[in-house]
């Protein structure tokens, strides 16, 4: 069952808020995780694992390093689901 972009964005916002304390409202598509949302490397790993659980898609480490922005993750999840 494919999720809409908005569903993924909302789910990702919840994850980022839970793990990194960044309000979900700030997790918008154009933001980069490292520079805009100030998320460190270890938290990024935790976010990726939580995203795999929530969306049921695998995010291999090789892919994770290419996912710089919120939109990148949303697009990846949508493509894989």
């Amino acid at each position, binding site marked *: 069952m494919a999720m809409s972009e908005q569903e993924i964005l909302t789910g990702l916002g919840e994850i980022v808020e839970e*793990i*990194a*304390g960044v309000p979900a409202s700030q997790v918008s598509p154009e933001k980069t995780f490292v520079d805009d949302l100030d998320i460190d490397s*270890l*938290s990024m*790993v*935790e976010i990726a*694992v939580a995203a795999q659980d929530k969306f049921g898609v695998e995010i291999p480490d090789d892919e994770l390093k290419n996912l710089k922005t919120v939109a990148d993750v949303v697009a990846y999840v949508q493509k894989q689901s």
Partner: protein
Amino acid sequence: MSATRVVVTGLGLTTPVGGDVASTWSALLAGKSGIGPLTEDWADTVPSRVIGRAAVDPSEVLPRVRCRRTDRYEQFALIAAAEAWADAGLEGKAAEAGIDPDRFGVAVSSGIGGILTTLTQYDIFKEKGWQRVSPFTVPMLMPNGAAGWISMEYDARAGAHSTVSACSSGAEGIGYAIDMIRSGRADIAIAGGSEAAIHPLNLAAFASMRALSTTRNDEPERASRPFDKGRDGFVLGEGAGIVVLESEEHARARGARVYAEAAGVGYASDAHDIALPHPEGRGAASAMSHALRHADASAEEIVHVNAHATSTPAGDAVETKAIRATLGDSVADRVVVTATKSMTGHLLGGAGALESIVTVLSLRDGVVPRTINLDDLDDEVVTDIVRDEPRRLPDGPIAAINNSFGFGGADVALVFRRA
């Protein structure tokens, strides 16, 4: 050439009797115990069911996300460091506070490290596999994690050290920081110790070595009783003590309030037994002698000793013999000794730092808290123990010793001098 004088300019505590310095100090002066019953659902699996829980849980103080990525021992250290930093009149990171980051060090340790994280994450690993193990596990379990977090919080770049020596770790952190400043590596340092080890495995392990109190589970406040004939082991506590130390010159230049001089530190090792103290207190006496020399202090200056005294049958009386051997009979006949652990329990790696702060406050206020639960003084105790009510210290220039000893035969003594 005289050595650089090091002074104490900030204090921070979170302990079983209070969430900060003021509440802890007033509880100790009032003789209030922080020991309560172990109420966890696993309590019945261990023989020691008395515990010194922190009076204020870190989750009430720190933001949720900070708690997620730090072990409880790191949380205590961060809370006490924040209090000490503010108490020293400092705000924000080093540069904002007018401190040179490259001349600013950290020496904060724990005896065990983040053992709650280690055990919790191992459970997760066994149940769910490696990918569900938190990526923060290593920074949470390592004994230098608290030092690392504190160095980042305040931008301390002269070195973030962790001096692991079991129950003397916190005192050794303060000693290390004194040496950092005296040797010219730093002008200012955050130092101390922290511990959060209340877990069934730890209680089982300490009980297995017959180190814990097990006979007063129905009267927790009476379980920790250093120097009493009926003592039967220590009571596990948790929390942290952190101080800000500076060279006197640095403190004066910025107009800092000075609590006391951190005059010297002495180290020794018993080289005798991995758990038991040397029967004559050989290492303890050596550490105190070295500390007096390092402080350029005579025995006559010493009016008070804040004892390590944990309430174990093996340790407490021997320590008083070592005090007598070090200070000589004329000083030992008048020196005033107390055991903070009678009220707080044993904070392990946090103990030496907590008790250093109590020693500093005793010098400042001229009053020594009593040792509670001392109903029947052990005949082997050969110094004057403060009981019944707090004791006044003389006016004028005086100094005090804080002793801390650890498994492995570690002996650390610190000398503080009234400012």
